[in-house]
């Protein structure tokens, strides 16, 4: 079992590839990672993940962080055969990000699958989770309860 601290370190050293390039800002000093998306300099529309063009004006989209903290809007626990070598069971959800107001789909902490509720405050973490399209281990982002315990209440 890889501890969160070890996961964080391995994420920081970048030994494993990220499940999709360009979606994560992982500080080299082991600081709080955040989701990397985009924002359109002329429309102000924010995106995650970053598209090659703004969907509104078709202009270029600049890379920008869309946040690391938010609350669970909805979630589910998948209890059947997991795809991509993900843990069984695994949890996923939509998170409303504080910083950008975006509602993003993401994995939820596999070590806390039973604790999520609608409204649970969460923050981003990155760890070795499952395998990539070629079957190799890779890093995936996931949201973990900001406060340990069911529903984020310690």
């Amino acid at each position, binding site marked *: 079992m890889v501890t969160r601290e070890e996961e964080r370190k391995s994420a920081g050293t970048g030994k494993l590839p990220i*499940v*999709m390039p360009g*979606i994560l800002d992982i500080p080299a000093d082991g600081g709080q990672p955040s989701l990397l998306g985009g924002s359109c300099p002329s429309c102000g529309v*924010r*995106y*995650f*993940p970053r598209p090659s063009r703004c*969907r509104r004006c078709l202009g270029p989209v600049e890379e920008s962080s869309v946040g690391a903290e938010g609350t669970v*809007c*909805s*979630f*589910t*626990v*998948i*209890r*059947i*055969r*997991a*795809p*991509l070598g*993900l843990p069984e069971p*695994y949890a*996923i*959800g*939509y998170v*409303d990000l504080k910083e950008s*107001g*975006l*509602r993003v*789909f*993401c*994995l939820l902490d596999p070590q806390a699958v039973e604790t999520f509720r*609608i409204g649970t405050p969460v923050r981003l973490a990155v760890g070795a989770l*499952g395998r*990539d*399209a070629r079957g190799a281990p890779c890093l*995936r*982002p996931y949201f973990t309860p900001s406060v340990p315990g069911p529903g984020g209440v310690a």
Partner: protein
Amino acid sequence: MGAACVAGVGMIPFGKHVERTLVDMGSEAAYLALEDAGIEPGRVGLGVFACAAAPRLLGEMTSGQNIFWEVGIHRIPILNVENACTSGSTGFVLACNAIAAGQVDVALVVGAEKLCVPGVGLLNSGETELDTRLGMVTPAGFAMRAARYIHKFGASAAQLASVAVKNRGHAVLNPYAHFREAVTLEDVLSSPMVADPLTRMQCCPMSDGAAAVVLCSREEARRRRRTVGVKAAILCTGSYDNPVDLDRWETDYRGCAQGYEAAGIGPEDLHVVECHDAFTIAEILHYEALGLCGPGEGANLAVRGETRFGGRIPVNVSGGLIGRGHPPGATGLAQVHEIVTQLRGEAGGRQVRNAKAGLAHCMGGDKDGDTKSFTMIVLAC
């Protein structure tokens, strides 16, 4: 709208047809529809073949030309269409448009699917999408809407499950259904959990099967009997704006409003409905989008029995996706098959009395928390 009529329908029983090929199933449904319409192959001016997943699973392309030639149709324009679960109904819309444009008098739409292929897991919306790489699977999108619905309206797991009991009960009456045994509320609730709060029996099965519809112009229909008029056949796509509405599908409301407007009727004018009950929560949300009840009232509507066979507005009398089964390429046309059979008064033991108007509602695929495709087909005699 209103230029096209259904002249004939055909389908094969849905289920696990491991020994049958896509061409074999599709061409049998095509033959049955031509025979039902009493139309010779040479009169068909346009062929549309709809299929969602099988071409990718089997590595086949342009199966339509193979299927149509099996029933003697060649030389004419043939389209191969993929639009996830609305593939079949999308083909129907295309054929209606061609007839409305005066391009052809007769069109044949065939939908077939083969999902029972060894090693196939859950379907997703494409492995290059970030959602898919982060573990999104089809039941999850519905499960997350169910969680929101329960949170917002206080609906119970048993209320959701009652939709599966109803549709599996209906399927007992349908010789084309994948499942023919009734289930109890306890069966549904105690079946294995797939994605909280949806248990296995609240999810439609992955089925093989085929269905076909012959469409003709209104002028051609005047020379025929047992035709059913197409009041509206519309297709639309999701909006994908962020934040997406997870309490309902915005597309569902927008599409239903478009469909009713095109048909010139409202929900109060319907006698029978087939909707896209891929999962129990979906049928409840579709009741609300279709205006069969108000927002938040769908779960109660299901429990009160108003959507059951014999109720105020029977929904999915065929068994729906949950009972009849779900071969995505064929589903949209199987829905049309059911409504046409009901409006003709030929549904036997599951005949809805005095059914004069009905609709087939379908949604397909998932993108950014919304649907990829939506179709609504309104039929009346």
